């Protein structure tokens, strides 16, 4: 599961995928041991993470809601449905002078790239989840930034935390939906 490349702006550089290596290494190793990790299992795991990032602290920082709306999950058949039905619902950010259509453009580009990754190898189930907003990495890594109050609390590293604290659950979700789980 990889986040797609973000897009360059003056303030928010194209930082590509950074972090998560340590978090994902053990998880991917365990998943690889399963003889067949079904796409459905991977999708269910991605849906679970989506819920976690919005329902348990720390949640996705929220201002206009565009970061939350930039969430996407792709699989071999393209972009998967957002279980929260918020994905793609962008709003104009007047303060940063970013239009909803700009967010939509990024979203389309990111999901196209991620869909290509998911469909690249039909013999290997690949699900990609992440955020298409170009500032997602900055918000994720910016310790000490102030966020609009919401409950439960929003905070940096929300995505990494959601994966890290649920590693066992993710393995179990994928295992239960796999055709031939490891014995």
């Amino acid at each position, binding site marked *: 599961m990889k986040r797609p490349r973000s897009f360059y702006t*003056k*303030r*928010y*550089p194209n*930082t590509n995928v*950074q*972090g*998560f*290596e*340590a*978090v994902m290494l053990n998880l991917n190793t365990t998943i690889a041991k399963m003889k067949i990790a079904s796409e459905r299992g991977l999708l269910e795991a991605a849906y679970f993470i989506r819920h976690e990032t919005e329902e348990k602290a720390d949640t996705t920082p929220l201002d206009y809601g565009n970061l939350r709306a930039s969430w996407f999950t792709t699989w071999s058949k393209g972009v998967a449905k957002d279980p929260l039905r918020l994905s793609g619902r962008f709003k104009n950010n007047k303060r940063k002078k970013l239009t909803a259509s700009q967010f939509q453009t990024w979203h389309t580009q990111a999901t196209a790239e991620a869909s290509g990754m998911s469909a690249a190898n039909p013999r290997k189930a690949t699900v990609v989840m992440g955020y298409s907003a170009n500032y997602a*990495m*900055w918000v994720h*890594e*910016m*310790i*000490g930034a102030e966020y609009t109050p919401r409950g439960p609390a929003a905070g*940096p*590293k929300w995505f990494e*935390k959601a994966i*890290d604290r649920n590693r066992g659950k993710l393995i179990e979700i994928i295992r239960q939906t796999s055709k031939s789980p490891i014995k």
Partner: protein
Amino acid sequence: MNMPSEDIRDMLEAESSLGLIFATNLFIGTEPTKPKETVTIFDTYGRPPQLTLGGKEEDSGYYYPSVQIRVRGIEQRTVWELINDIMLSLHGRGQETWNGALYTVIYCSSGPALLDWDDNGLVRFIVNFNLQRRESLDSA
């Protein structure tokens, strides 16, 4: 035990080649607006502490905190070199006691990455570390 950021601060200060001095160009928790070139250490979330094999006892269990180090400066190349030196200095260290805490391993969890250019046009890089530590038995 101290905050992990305090121990990391001491480790970085002890590395004279880095040229870092606390409260001059090395800070904890809050990134000051001046000077322009700063290194700031943040305590970030870690993993659950050990609960088995006596882990409930504060002086015998292992803790797994994390820190983020943010380096700010003028020249992108210089800032990257400094944060890379910091990464090389800390990554892979282990079996060291600092302020009564035994650090069994310190490792970089995500390498130096460009964060942004701040409101003053200064470039900022970050690097994250995972730590494993416990109360040093020698200090008991």
